């Protein structure tokens, strides 16, 4: 379909909607690149959540090798908050990889003038294909989301160079999904004396439910973030039959991370369920246990001098596209975390496999 045809289809859509007394609404254009149609259900769910709050024009770019030519379609999606008077436009561009070079030209006329453009890139950015550069040049911010990078250090390094290339206007849904835990840890370790728990040798156990990909991204991000914030230098990575152990040296001692999967139907796949922090000079113990089917976490603390009553905190929900679009882009916390993950000292195993289910 040519651009003219696409424009004609949009005009027809507006006319049809006008008969229902509905107007298109959008605060921005959202481009979504998916390397495979199989990813569509996940991102349709993400978009559905977004459209419950904010209207936008959606342009999907779906790579589909079974096609021999470009295929386009236009449709409308309900915008929940607009009642019956507003709708969001949806454009789908499906293409084999051989025709990807046409995509930037095809969608350029359909970016809404004067409003932001955001790009969600649902592929491992390690290889940085030309399409990423072309689309990133149009976007105010690029949000990355990959379940299974083939090489974690390469992935982290690619994100670091993209951070520089895109002047920091980067979002990362995995990083966003750790927001609740990061805030919880920051509020728990809120005073200088609380950090005695990390002095000497501290053991940190993270339990998680395995997902489809080989890397539990949320868990890896969180441990790298914590290690980076405590000025950890990576020493050793030891893959286990299930899970992995990592050691970092800090100015105050040593951090020994144990990342362990556990299998339970109480939580969705790829969910961090428990954190236990042991040791330190005052033999402190911190336990964070997530309550099934909720955002609540029970927190309990004791050390050689006292034992506190447990209390409950609510994890802020992360992983939301909305947060990545509207909040300030990622900070030095993110950059430092990636720098640790990119460290050559940690021999992460390579993986050739699937992305999100």
């Amino acid at each position: 379909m040519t651009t003219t045809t696409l424009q004609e289809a949009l005009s027809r859509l507006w006319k049809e909607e006008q008969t229902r007394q509905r107007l298109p609404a959008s605060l921005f254009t959202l481009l979504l690149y998916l390397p495979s149609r199989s990813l569509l259900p996940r991102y349709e769910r993400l978009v559905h959540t977004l459209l419950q709050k904010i209207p936008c024009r959606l342009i999907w770019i779906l790579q589909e090798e079974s096609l021999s030519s470009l295929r386009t379609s236009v449709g409308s999606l309900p915008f929940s908050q607009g009642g019956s008077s507003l709708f969001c436009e949806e454009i789908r561009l499906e293409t084999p990889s051989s025709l990807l070079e046409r995509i930037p030209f095809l969608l350029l006329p359909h970016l809404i003038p004067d409003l932001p453009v955001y790009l969600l890139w649902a592929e491992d950015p390690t290889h940085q294909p030309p399409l990423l550069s072309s689309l990133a040049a149009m976007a105010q911010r690029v949000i990355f989301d990959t379940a299974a990078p083939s090489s974690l250090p390469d992935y982290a390094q690619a994100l670091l160079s993209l951070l520089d290339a895109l002047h920091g206007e980067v979002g990362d849904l995995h990083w966003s999904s750790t927001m609740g835990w990061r805030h919880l840890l920051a509020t728990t370790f809120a005073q200088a004396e609380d950090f005695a728990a990390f002095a000497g040798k501290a053991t940190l156990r993270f339990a998680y439910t395995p997902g489809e990909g080989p890397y539990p991204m949320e868990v890896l991000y969180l441990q790298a973030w914590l290690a980076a914030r405590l000025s950890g230098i990576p020493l050793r990575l030891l893959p286990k039959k299930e899970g992995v152990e990592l050691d970092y040296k800090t100015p105050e001692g040593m951090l020994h991370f144990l990342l362990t999967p556990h299998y339970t139907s109480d939580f969705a796949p790829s969910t961090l369920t428990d954190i236990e922090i042991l040791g330190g000079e005052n033999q402190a113990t911190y336990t964070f246990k997530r309550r099934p089917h909720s955002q609540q976490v029970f927190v309990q603390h004791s050390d050689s001098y006292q034992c506190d009553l447990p209390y409950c905190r609510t994890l802020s929900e992360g992983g939301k596209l909305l947060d990545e679009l509207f909040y300030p882009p990622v900070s030095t916390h993110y950059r430092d975390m990636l720098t640790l993950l990119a460290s050559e000292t940690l021999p992460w195993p390579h993986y050739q496999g699937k992305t999100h289910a």
Partner: protein
Amino acid sequence: MRYHDLVPTMNTGPTQDIGFLNPLEEKGRAPRLVDPCILVIFGATGDLTARKLVPALYNLSREGQLPSHFACVGFARREKSHDRFRCEMEEAVRRFSRSSPLDENLWQLFANQLYYHISHFDQDAGYEALRLFLHELDGRLGTKGNRIFYLATPPSYFPTIIQKLGEHKLLYDTHQMREKWSRVVIEKPFGQDYESAVSLQQVVMNHLSESQLYRIDHYLGKETVQNLLIFRFANSLFEAFWNNHYIDHVQITVAESMGIGTRAALYEESGIMGDMIQNHMMQLLCLTAMEPPTSLHSDAIRDEKVKVLKALRPIDLARFEEQVVQGQYGPGYVDGLPVVGYREEEKVAPLSATATYAALKAYIDNWRWVGVPFYLRAGKRLPKRATEIAILFKKVPSILFSHKNPPGDNILVIRIQPDEGISLRINCKVPGPSSPIQPVKMDFRYGHYFGLTPPEAYERLIYDAMLGDSTLFERSDEVLASWKWCTPILTRWRERVDTSFPNYPAGSWGPPAADRLIAQDRRAWRLL
């Protein structure tokens, strides 16, 4: 950064102030961290606690914004147990929380943080017992001695309560504030006139520093009011014509369709002046008329607001009736249903002279606004609930268009509530061979585009009070400057009681004199 090199926590004020820099805290992205604390609500059996304060705390808890170690203690004279209070608050949250249904699991955990303390406001033994109870809670819950005392009581109790808190060492001095903090939150109105506001200020300052006192005007907690600053100062377009060269006049309306309900005692004390004009109206006026602040720091913003208040031209008492109209609602119809007049409301004196409506013409004598009248009106039992700021622009020269079909005024309306948004009325040509001019509206509706259910104002204000951020609270000079301007009006009303009361039926837009006030300038109130 070596965490053992970090300076120990010093809670002198805002949580993120000098001292310990938490390496885990991500500034600008993550929600700001709140210190452990205890919130004591005086007047815990009152309407405000049930309708606003506890539901706000519940929603803060739901959003994960309450501190990790927290307790709320209700302080009131009625006999009840902790459990009874918790049951009553559960009912209140079910009814009044913006989020529903109630999260039962969360409620169980939240309710365990609620306590009740029985005492009269002037009972020394009650304050002593409170001090011991709070100390016990500190030990049990780890709240580290940090306190917020929320005075959800009639203003007449403020001096007593603050004095007793001071006498019983529940308020900390500067030296103690190095390790823990205490803050007092009070509701508007602060005083009933200028003299009582000054007197109250003196009582308060005997026991507190200005930085410990948080004067609430809940309008400042509204998203749309905060958006005023963004609208004015994040859009260069508007600054260019935000002055007397382009603006003909400004109308600010704060209208309620409700009557006074069960608040007769409070309303008889405050009247329309203390209930709306001196606080909400003055805040909207300041935010509309202020100069751009030098920064978004709380004092920079409040400095500019005070300048507006100081530039307000005093009411000319010789021409009082041309500038000020007061009213009191009589029986009428609201939403098609008959309602009683103010004097027939429960516990209102049969011959009460309290005003429930006021319309004012104000001038701000500075370079930006000289010659631009600000028409202000506020009242109870008006046809609808609506708060808005309307900027009416000067007419174009009448050269190009026929006098039979002149272009209408351009009007920029900022709707504070309900149907929050901004609209701009412009003139367009009606399609066709002739050129009749038709006004049309460019309309932005907050709810349509952002669709988020914004936090209630009290959630934001309580959260900011816990953080020690006073941006959305009134400063003493702000309060005193607004009372200084309003008090001569009150004095005149008291000296010359209006015998025409009631002078507008409930459900109408106020007394006819209010229409004459603006009509004398060949203008008219906007129909909302």
